């Protein structure tokens, strides 16, 4: 397989990074000063039984070194402790939250990539015209807006037209399937729109820049010389090459997407991972905080890895 060692190297890097993240996680929460943080078994209102079980599971009465090893072991079993707030396993809470977040983030990201690419291509194609200025200005404008503020603005504008909070209408009891779907759809609109608008600008700029770069390459001239029509050249030769940086950008954006999700979910009361982090902070629910942070870091690592491999697959020139 081409570049098997490249793939292996990236894989190894990802694994090591996860390991480093886990360690940082441990250090941050267990070694930080303040007993509230160090003790996973201090679940408020917990029964003595629960406390003892947690102490034993996480070896909280042993040395830090031993705790670390036990922590790793528990991680492999998917045991992240118990939430201080609702006394459920952290992993369960997180799983539910993640399932709520993913569709919203997915839609928003899709929107931003599609609109961003479209506007980027148009801006490059119509270089030096007012169209380009307008496209780039809008992109920069939305890109500069603080995520949460944009969400609030959308709420102000669309209040009454679209639901502005929560994932579903709580007053709909046992709705029929399609009503439920429509309800979800109307609730997901504003949050994902906010995410899409905040993110698309970066894609516009990158795609435009990559397109301009590509359109200056010799093979574009060759394609013209062959008699291809301009739009065919853009589609078949330029776009493919110009999209390569987009793959990398998607990975790099993931950090922003995660941050954006936190802010958006707080504004729209969306019961996802972001909101879970926010509420964990407010309530000083350290096991949740620790678990959520770990989950977010690992997902970014995985997405970076996927993006690396994707880029590798798309560009035949990379052989190292």
């Amino acid at each position, binding site marked *: 397989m081409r570049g098997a060692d490249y793939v292996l190297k990236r894989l190894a*890097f990802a694994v090591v*990074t996860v390991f*480093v*993240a886990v360690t*940082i996680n441990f250090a*941050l929460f267990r070694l*930080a000063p*303040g007993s509230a*943080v160090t003790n996973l078994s201090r679940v408020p209102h917990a029964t003595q039984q629960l406390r003892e079980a947690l102490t034993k599971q996480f070896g909280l009465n042993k040395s830090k070194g031993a705790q670390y090893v036990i922590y790793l072991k528990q991680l492999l079993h998917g045991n992240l402790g118990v939430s201080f707030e609702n006394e459920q396993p952290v992993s369960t809470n997180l799983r539910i939250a993640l399932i709520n977040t993913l569709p919203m983030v997915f839609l928003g990201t899709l929107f931003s990539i599609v609109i961003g690419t479209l506007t980027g291509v148009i801006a*490059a*194609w*119509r*270089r*030096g*015209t007012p169209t380009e200025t307008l496209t780039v200005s809008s992109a*920069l*404008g939305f*890109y*500069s*807006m*603080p*995520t*949460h*503020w*944009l969400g*609030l*603005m959308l709420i*102000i504008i669309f*209040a009454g037209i679209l639901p502005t909070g929560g994932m579903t209408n709580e007053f709909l009891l046992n709705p029929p399937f399609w009503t439920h779907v429509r309800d979800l759809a109307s609730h997901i609109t504003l949050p994902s729109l906010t995410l899409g608008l905040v993110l698309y600008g970066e894609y516009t700029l990158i795609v435009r820049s990559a397109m*301009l*770069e590509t*359109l*200056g*390459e*010799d093979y*574009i*001239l*060759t394609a*013209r010389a062959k008699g291809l029509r*301009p739009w065919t*050249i*853009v589609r078949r030769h*330029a776009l493919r090459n110009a999209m390569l940086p987009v793959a990398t950008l998607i990975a790099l954006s*993931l*950090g922003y997407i*995660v*941050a954006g999700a*936190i*802010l958006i979910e*707080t504004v729209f009361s969306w019961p996802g991972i972001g909101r879970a*982090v*926010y509420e964990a*902070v*407010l309530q000083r629910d350290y096991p949740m*905080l620790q678990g*959520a*942070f770990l989950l*977010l*870091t690992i997902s*970014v690592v995985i997405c970076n890895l996927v993006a690396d491999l994707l880029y590798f697959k798309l560009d035949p020139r990379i052989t190292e």
Partner: protein
Amino acid sequence: MSSAGIMIEAPTTPAQTRRGFVLRTLRAKPAATIGLVVLMIVVLVAVLAPVIAPYGLHTQVGPVFGSPSWSHPLGLDDGGIDMVTLLMWGARISLVVGFAATVVSMAIGGTVGVLAGYFGGVVETILMRITDYFIVVPDVPLMIVVAAIWGPSLFHIVIVIGILLWTSTARVIRAQVKSVRERVYVKRARALGAGHTRIVLRHVLPQVAPLLIANTVLTVAVAIFDETALSFLGLGDPSRVSLGKVIENAFERAAISAGAWWAIVPPGAVVALIILACSLVGGALEDALNPRLRVAHLSARTFRLRPLVGRSDSAL
């Protein structure tokens, strides 16, 4: 260089001379000039806030969420305080945090970048690996966690933001330092026995400065955004009023339900403006440092035709 295409040998002065580089770039691009002017106005207002603010920062001058009126063009916030005053003071705090965090980030990132680029080898590998790990960890969650554990104060916020923003600077500076290191005059200086410090200070840093400036401006934008985000999530310094805090207060006190859009829209608009201005200026500087000499072979426009010219000797 495109050999098949055309290299236009436009007679211009080289863009890389340090002196006046920033000014020249800004003059060439109107967008950047606008950005700079906006920034200067905002900074001026922020610096003069104590003097020019129309009302007291903690003085209640009307009802909660009072509507805009002639005496209060932007209305009142949840404490009955004049919004214009809040914006001025808020800009002050936000800018302070933004600049301070950027300084921290530049110090770390610049040092790492210069060390890694200049010494290469093992030093570079170690520093770059560390950088890579920092890049992958998502900033805002980490910021949230650290701020939550450490406690809210302006100083903590500045440090927390600074600790996460240095990575892009480090990478960019390293690349530039590596290329500068290979230049003839650096090698000559080494051959003449100049010490590392001297070379770095006298030869490397000046060449890297324009890029550092561009990166700094862009970092300020991100720092201000981060401060806004942290404040919004309740992790900002509660005793200081930053623009982020103004938005957070409004959100907490249900400004939207009260219909008090003026408590939310202006502070965010100011933040957006600052970030936009920084992006324009920083972006223009970055573009100027990577000039695209290549001509686009294809675009919606095509080359133009002119009417036939007479025989060559007529003045052309």
